[in-house]
């Protein structure tokens, strides 16, 4: 925020109040829902570290918009290609931020988007392949100003 001197007062009530629900969520509850979400996606499979290039700034100026891009190494054949990429957040109110489903016709596993981060936290990416493997990567992002804070 560029004028964070008195952030409590805001231009519009809707934006102002968004501060509250996030601040009120206990960190423990979020971690548990993150763990549950990851477990559901893994469905008993053990993730392999590596094979994923997760590009996300280590320091984000505003959690409203954090650039994220993911590239997954893959031989990209009909039999062996990436079928899904999931982005998970550890401390957002909703742990499953986005899922990308790729067909063989995507040609390669390379996606980008922008996400909201409520606070400094780890962002986790799971990539599923057509052979049943799951790759995993995680990166810590320091958020200078979390999403959901409006200072006018």
């Amino acid at each position: 925020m560029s004028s964070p001197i008195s952030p409590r007062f805001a231009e519009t009530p809707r934006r102002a109040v968004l501060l509250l629900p996030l601040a009120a969520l206990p960190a423990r509850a979020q971690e548990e829902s993150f763990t549950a979400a990851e477990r559901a996606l893994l469905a008993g499979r053990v993730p392999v570290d590596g094979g994923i290039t997760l590009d996300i700034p280590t320091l984000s100026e505003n959690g409203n918009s954090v650039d994220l891009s993911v590239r997954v190494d893959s031989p990209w054949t009909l039999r062996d290609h990436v079928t899904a990429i999931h982005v998970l957040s550890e401390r957002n109110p909703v742990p499953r931020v986005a899922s990308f489903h790729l067909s063989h016709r995507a040609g390669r596993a390379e996606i980008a988007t922008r996400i909201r981060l409520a606070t400094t936290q780890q962002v986790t990416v799971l990539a599923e392949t057509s052979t049943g493997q799951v790759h995993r990567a995680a990166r810590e992002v320091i958020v200078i100003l979390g999403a959901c804070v409006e200072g006018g």
Partner: protein
Amino acid sequence: MKRAAAALLCCMGLAQADGVRPARDFLSPELRAQQDDPSRHPGWLWVDEGEALWRAGERSCQSCHGDVAAMAGVAARYPAVAADGALLNLELRIERCREEQQGAPRFGYESQALLSLTAAIAQRSRGLAMSVPVDGAAAPFLERGREFYATRQGQLNLSCGQCHDENAGRRLRGDVISSGIGTGYPAYRLEWNTLGSLHRRLRACSLGVRAEQLPLGGADYLALELYLAHRARGMPMEAPGIRR
């Protein structure tokens, strides 16, 4: 020799008497890249909309002015004094055109339509150097703006210059203080999650020092806008900018 001349030119362009630097210098590399790339810059959604509005209707903007490309350089010369002596920024110039030339009601300050048209016109001056006329009829407005800029205001008793001249480049918490020029407006501000006008940004500045928030399009912010544009003379237009 050639290199020395280029270096000198570069310095003259960047280092003004009061040390004003282009707004993009204060952005992170990520935001700068986003500002430069229309395929990733949400501000272009408004530019597209503005270009459609430019062509829309029987008495369209285009029916008088031709293609919007003809607007190149115009935004770099605003705010400007109209024939009747009023100081108009780009937004108010468009509003006046709506009423007087198109016989249509005003869009309203900060409306999506006005933001879009302003963005579409301002974008045509991207990269061009700011150069507002400040002599003649503009001179008293410039003085008023300069005085507003230098006046300590609000419960926190700060003038614009105390931050944006004396402390530009330093940090307020994690945020870098910029030179405080409006060359990127209307801008897509991450904090707003939308495109907004310079005057909306100025209201946030007033709020920050706990001063009265003045009306959008009002005389004080207009005069300040002229002074900021004059302070930014020679700086490249960046609208639509990306701002934190």
